[in-house]
């Protein structure tokens, strides 16, 4: 069992990285999974030229998988070029979690990425890039 709720995941859950909110963020987006009540908000500040993530934070509540995988995602994308972040996929998140997830729980793990991508997308549309 510890394969899933193993130290790394629990550690991220108990000590979430980049947790909180950012003032004057360029991007703020929140979504929730109404089925289980998982909720995640992500705030992003971009670099001067808008090409990279300069600062990022998440907040929210829900199950361990959703919160811990959001924390892992923060670590992963911090300071990365937007182009790279946009390329992240389902499998990348599964790799971060590193433990087998059943289909019903994959949705929980994907919430963070979904919020981040939707926020980025909206930002790019609004700024006509």
């Amino acid at each position: 069992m510890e394969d899933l709720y193993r130290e790394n995941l629990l550690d991220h859950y108990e000590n979430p990285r980049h947790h909180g909110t950012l003032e004057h963020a360029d991007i703020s987006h929140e979504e929730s999974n109404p089925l289980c009540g998982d909720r995640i908000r992500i705030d992003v500040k971009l670099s001067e030229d808008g090409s990279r993530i300069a600062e990022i934070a998440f907040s929210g509540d829900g199950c361990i998988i959703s919160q811990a995988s959001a924390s892992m995602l923060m670590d992963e994308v911090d300071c990365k070029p937007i182009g790279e972040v946009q390329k992240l996929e389902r499998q990348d998140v599964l790799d971060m979690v590193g433990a087998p997830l059943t289909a019903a729980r994959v949705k929980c793990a994907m919430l963070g990425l979904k919020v981040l991508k939707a926020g980025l997308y909206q930002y790019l549309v609004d700024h006509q890039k």
Partner: protein
Amino acid sequence: MKDTIRSLDVARIRQDFPALNERVHGRPLVFLDSAASSQKPIQVLSALDQAYRTSYANVHRGVYYNSERTTDLYDQAREKITRFIGAPAPENVVFVRNATEALNLVAYSYGRHFLQAGDEIVLTELEHHANFVPWQVLARERGIRLKFIPLTPQGTLDLARLDELLTPRVKLVTFAHVSNVLGTITDPRPVIERAHAVGAKVVVDGCQAAPHMPVDVQALDCDFYALSGHKMLGPTGIGVLYGKTDVLEAMPPFMTGGDMISSVTFDSVTWNEIPVKFEAGTPAFVEAIALGAAVDYLAALGMDAVRAHEREVVAYAIERLTEVPGATIIGPTDPDIRGGALTFTIKDIHPHDLGTLLDREGVAIRAGHHCAQPLHVRLGLPATARASFYIYTELREIDALIEAIYKAKHTLRK
């Protein structure tokens, strides 16, 4: 009275359920999700198999042996279910896919024909989506008002509020006989009497009641009663809508097609008699036959004994869960008014995490909103965990549940 009820020989019963002998993740399966769908005894599996293996043919109007025989078996199944729920006659038993279809049938056929703008429907805050969304859709489409019987803090229907809700505009009252989340058993009789007094028809969602306790639709005097076969030892794909004769006869058909018409030309059509009027196309007749075998099985156990057994299991589960630090039981804790579904939360553990951790111990419970989102909004909980029981549930399985909860708490350091 109590000691005259035969109690269940659970060890014997379990031998009829091959799926209960499995191992999951290397552990013996502890199946505590019967409220979602029950396991099936070999008697039902063999009824299914035999119906296909022996003299199979489509029912109705075949003039040859196989078709006659299958039609007979199908008719017998309807008779068995008629007796099981105390319906006056087989014509009152309409076969549908599941309780959801039964309730939609009433909303479409009765609702769209007999209800109009300005009318009111009374339902409750604890309904399953199946007995909520069809009325919500109807209400919007027709300008009908929905009114809700609220809950008491204990999780029972606040029937003190019923009289003020029952205005003369109320044309329909509907509620779950047993809640699939709170487990609350509502005595339908007084509600039905008061609803009838203002001329409203009453629809009872019996999905969580019919599998677990004696039901007598004539004694209840409800106008409609809905149930799903797969929750009461039967196969998937079959359910029942009970309806009173005059109401069913007055209703237009829901779906149309073969078998449900008496005669049709290019310009006109006359419907067949009830219940066939509501059964368009080739019915799920093999599933109906197997549901007949399922109610045979339950009737042989005795529904009083089934209820007594579940009362004992739920009482024990309440007792054991109460001792777990951080555990909160959702709904009544009095086993006399609680069916065999125990919903709870564990402080600081999301129900989905709990579900996943319990699964690793072989313990299968359900986590989520159990298709009762409005109720969960009222409760202020996005999700809950639910362990539910049936005739094959043993007290040692409750112990396994509690052990697994402790282990989850340990793993998550809660």
